[in-house]
């Protein structure tokens, strides 16, 4: 009767086989990454000094941050040389965040189309109240415009 390798033998073989397989980054690699990160920090400050328009400036700032974050994640956090599973976890995390931000922004940016009174009405009431009193005093806002629609609109269907 042939004897199968004992659990101890197979375990030892397995251990030997998988030892010392981690990627070790070179110092040059780490130093170059740091210099790149510092360069992009200067770049993001410089980019904010140039007026490219509200949304372009925002996207440039986010874009540079994504590049910097990628450097940190790929080199310092070893994702570049890791098992794919860690990157997959990160990818699905970002996917979740993208859905979260996308649907919240779509919702809040389009409420005004349905009901003008609700446009922008997400601030704490006291803050909104202060802001509105201020705006009325400065003649920027006339609440009488909204009296036809707005909150009263909801009860109208039952009356008619």
């Amino acid at each position: 009767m042939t004897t199968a390798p004992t659990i101890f033998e197979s375990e030892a073989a397995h251990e030997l086989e998988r030892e010392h397989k981690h990627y070790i980054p070179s110092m040059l690699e780490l130093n170059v990454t740091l210099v790149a990160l510092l360069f992009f920090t200067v770049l993001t400050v410089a980019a904010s000094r140039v007026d490219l328009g509200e949304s372009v400036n925002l996207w440039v700032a986010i874009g540079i941050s994504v590049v910097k974050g990628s450097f940190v994640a790929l080199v310092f956090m070893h994702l570049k040389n890791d098992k794919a599973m860690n990157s997959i976890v990160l990818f699905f995390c970002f996917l979740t965040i993208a859905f979260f931000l996308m649907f919240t922004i779509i919702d809040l940016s389009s409420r005004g189309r349905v009901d003008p009174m609700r446009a922008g009405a997400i601030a704490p009431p006291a803050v909104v109240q202060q802001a509105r009193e201020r705006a009325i005093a400065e003649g920027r806002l006339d609440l009488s415009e909204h009296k036809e629609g707005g909150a009263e609109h909801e009860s109208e269907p039952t009356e008619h």
Partner: protein
Amino acid sequence: MTTITNTSASVSQEPWERYKHQPHWRNNEDEFEAAKLGMWIFLATELLLFSGFFCAYFILRMFYPESFRGASEHYLDWRIGAINTIVLLVSSWNVAVAVRAAQVGKKKLLAFNVFFASLLGIVFLVLKIGLEYIPKIHKGELPGGNFWFAGAHGYDPSAYDPMFLSVYWVSTATHGFHVLVGVLLLWWIGWRALKGHFGPKHYTAVENIGLYWHLVDIIWIFLFPLLYLVP
């Protein structure tokens, strides 16, 4: 080379050389990879936590862009933010070098870099609390309904400034708390490094605490331009 024997030779060995994985793992490598995957899942939940603050930021900036521009320029000094960015980037480099030192078995280099990174973390917190938080509390530049800053030097606060400051305080304070936790974790790692717990064959904790520190760095990389550099 062989790890089967664990006899009298172990007397002269460093603790990391004697390290044996928990019994439910096949080998040290599987334990390392599993711990690291667990760390990445934890980091994913951290990103989800901070994504709520980023969401608040984007929504409020979408509604009140002019207020955000004035508030960012008036309440925050971009130079402090830039210095803190550099401080955290360098500390991240230190931690990356520390992990490498563990991989190649340089105990002193590992401990030095870990303690230096924690020192930079303390510098970050001192700059943040000393030059930002304390003056802001004295001047009433506080979040939401606590805001009482009446304006100065020709700056007239907009009614929506408290909302910018809400995002600023909540996101940076949560981030600052993470830095504080990171500093304590780095001390723990540095202390264990000096005791010889980490080496080429076993450095799981250095790797995972390093991942945490890098994530805190990445979050600041995003917070800095969004809060301090609104053009």
